[in-house]
C-alpha cells in the first residue's frame, strides 16, 4: 500500500508511464480475478480488465487519490463495467436482473457452460467453492470476494457499495454462512 501511494504520487507528478506500469502490475491480477469470478470467461475478463486500465490511465493524473481511495475507485470502475456488460447481455436477449440483491444469472450460466474447463483450470475444490458462490446474490458475492480474496477492509467495501459498514458486516456474515452450508451440502 505504501508503494502504491508512492507510485500514484510520482505518476501524478511526472506523468511517467513507468509509475503507471508499477500500479498496473500490482492491480492486474486482482482486477482480472474480480471479472473472472463473475464471468468465468478468460478472454472476456482480460478484455474488461484492459478496459478498466484504459479508464484508469486516462483519468489518474486528474484525480488526487491515495492507495485506499485508488483501490475503491478502480473497483468501482470494474463494477460499473460489469454492470454495462450485463446490460449489453440483456439487450441481446438474456434477462439479467441488475439489482444487487438478485442472483448472478449470467455468471451462473457461464459457470454451467464452462464447468468442465473450469474444473480443469481451477481444480475440483475451487470449482465446488465457485459453484457454491453461484447461490449467493451479486452483492454477497462481491463482498465475499473483496473481503476474503482481495483483503479489503470494511470501510473501503462500504465506500464502494455506498453502504455503511454494519450493513456490509451483516451481508458478509449471511453470505459466508450460506457459502459454508452450500459447501457442506455439496460434499
Amino acid at each position: 500500500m505504501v508503494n502504491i501511494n508512492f507510485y500514484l504520487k510520482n505518476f501524478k507528478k511526472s506523468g511517467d508511464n513507468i509509475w503507471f506500469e508499477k500500479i498496473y502490475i500490482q492491480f492486474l491480477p486482482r482486477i482480472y480475478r474480480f471479472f473472472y469470478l463473475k464471468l468465468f470467461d478468460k478472454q472476456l475478463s482480460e478484455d474488461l480488465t484492459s478496459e478498466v486500465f484504459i479508464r484508469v490511465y486516462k483519468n489518474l493524473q486528474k484525480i488526487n487519490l491515495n492507495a485506499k481511495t485508488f483501490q475503491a475507485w478502480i473497483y468501482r470502475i470494474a463494477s460499473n463495467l460489469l454492470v454495462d456488460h450485463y446490460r449489453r447481455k440483456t439487450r441481446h436477449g438474456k434477462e439479467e436482473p441488475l439489482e444487487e440483491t438478485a442472483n448472478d444469472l449470467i455468471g451462473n450460466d457461464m459457470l454451467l457452460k464452462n464447468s468442465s474447463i473450469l474444473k480443469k483450470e481451477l481444480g475440483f475444490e475451487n470449482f465446488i467453492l465457485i459453484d457454491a458462490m453461484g447461490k449467493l446474490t451479486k452483492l454477497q458475492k462481491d463482498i465475499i470476494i473483496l473481503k476474503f480474496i482481495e483483503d479489503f477492509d470494511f470501510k473501503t467495501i462500504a465506500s464502494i457499495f455506498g453502504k455503511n459498514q454494519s450493513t456490509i458486516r451483516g451481508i458478509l456474515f449471511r453470505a459466508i454462512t450460506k457459502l459454508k452450508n452450500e459447501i457442506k451440502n455439496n460434499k
Partner: protein
Amino acid sequence: MNEKTEKIFDRCLKLISRGYSIQYCLKKYSRYKDILEEYFKTIKYLKNLKNIKPKDINIKSSLDKIYKSAKNSTEPDMDKIKSKTATPDSGRRISLLKPVIVFITVLVVIVFSFAGTVYAFQDSLPGENLYPVKRTAESIQLFFYPELKKGQLHFKLLNNRIYEADRLIESGRDNDIELIEELLLDIDEEYNQCKKYNFFKSGNEEEAVTTINNIKNKYRKKYGQHNQDTEELSGYNEDTGNKENMSNEENVGENERNRNKKGNGN
C-alpha cells in the same frame, strides 16, 4: 444463536485485522470453537482463489495497447463512471471542490466576523475601542455615497452624533467632557454639511436645529460650570440669553467659527 454467532464472528474478524491469529480467536471464544472453525475453513478455501491470475499476459504489449487506446479515445470517461456512493470517484469532485470549499469557508468567516464587528461598532461610543472603526466605516461610506444623496447620509450622521452625545451626557462621567465637546463640534459640522447638500429643503431643518440645541442645553445643564468653552462654542447661553436672539443658522455658524478658533489655538 445466529445473532450471537454473528457478533462473535465479527469480533474475530476485528481481532484478526488487528494482527491476532485465528488460534487466539478460537481460544478466546472456545464455546464457539466448532462453528468458528467451519467459518475459517470456508475463508481458507476462498483465499485459495487468490491463485487465479491471468496467464501469459505480455505486460509490455498490453500496456502499449492501453496507452494507445487511451490516446485515441476522446470520450470523457469520468462522466461515464457514475457513482451513487460518495467516496470512490467523488475523489475528483472533492479535490476540485476543495478550493471552492476553502474559499467559501473563508468568505463566510470574514463576512460573519465583519458583520459581528459592524454590529459591535455600530453601537460604540466615543472613547471605546471600536469607535474609530465606526467613524472610519462612516467616512468610507460617505466617500462612496452618490453625490446626490450625500445630504441624506450627513443627516443620518448628524443624528448618530446627537445620539452619541446624548448617551455620553446621560452617563454623566467627567472624563467624557472632552469627548462630548468634540461631538458637539461634529454635530455642527454635520449640520453644515446637510445644509451644503441642500438636505433641509424638504423642511426638517427646524426640527434638526431644535434637537441640536436641546442636546447642547442638556450638556450645559449636566456639566454646568465645567464648560465655559462649550457654552461659547454652542453659541447659546440659557442663563444670560446673550446669543438667544441669534437665528438657529447663526448659532451653528458661530459654532463653526469657534471650532476653527479652537483648532487654530491647538
